[in-house]
């Protein structure tokens, strides 16, 4: 049941698409895998696409928030893309603020935003 989330490299960015409901173990494993991959590839940006995710609880939000801070410590920028309306609504109602997190509507916008950020 322990499946790993694939992390793809495109030029100087890593692209992650989370395609199924995250359990705790998979989420923690992903955190580690992403940081290792950043280290190996010297990527400067990461896009995490959440289009297929239909809910985020406080645990997954914390893992995401942490991985963004950790990536930033390693010198990489992270952009979160594809947050669905239902996810945005429940996160705010739940009282979770993902502050200072770069977001974009979809993967394409996310990559554009990241490129601008990395060039600027």
């Amino acid at each position, binding site marked *: *049941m322990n499946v790993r989330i694939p992390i793809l490299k495109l030029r100087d960015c890593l692209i992650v698409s989370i395609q199924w*409901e995250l*359990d*705790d*173990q998979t989420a923690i494993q992903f955190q580690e895998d992403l940081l290792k991959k950043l280290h190996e590839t010297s990527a400067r940006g990461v896009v995490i696409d959440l289009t297929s995710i*239909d*809910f*985020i*609880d*406080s*645990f997954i*939000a*914390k893992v995401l928030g942490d991985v963004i801070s950790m990536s930033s410590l390693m010198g990489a920028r992270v952009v979160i893309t594809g947050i*669905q*309306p*239902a*996810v945005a*609504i*429940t996160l705010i*109602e*739940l*009282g*979770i603020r993902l502050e200072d997190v770069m977001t974009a509507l979809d993967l394409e916008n996310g990559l554009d935003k990241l490129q601008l950020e990395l060039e600027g």
Partner: protein
Amino acid sequence: MSNQSSVEILTEWDIVAARQLGRNVAKELGFGTVDQARITTAISELARNIYLYAGQGKIEIQRVTEKGLNGIMIIATDNGPGIPDIRKVMEDGFSTSGGLGAGLPGVKRLMDDFRIDTNLGEGTDIRATKWLR
């Protein structure tokens, strides 16, 4: 599926099982995607509280009808230590587990009705209902 309406919470995997059960029932009842997300998230938070604070307990999912409204009730019970200061845990931003679990105020906001009974040394019983409108 409606015959299995509860999940024992013993491990992290049971949190996943509980929210899947809740989501399925919510879908069957005809809740829209936003309410399904609210219900699933509320179950996840309650199940995680049980796992973190009580060690073990149970999540029950019940279909309820009242005043002509159909709804879904999440019943989270445990025989854990109980909550010493309910007023405090119902304050936003209060969590004793190092930021894990957005806590009960969040669950209350996600659902329509929320009731908590807790006794020190005996356990906690939380009932949260969402009505289909």
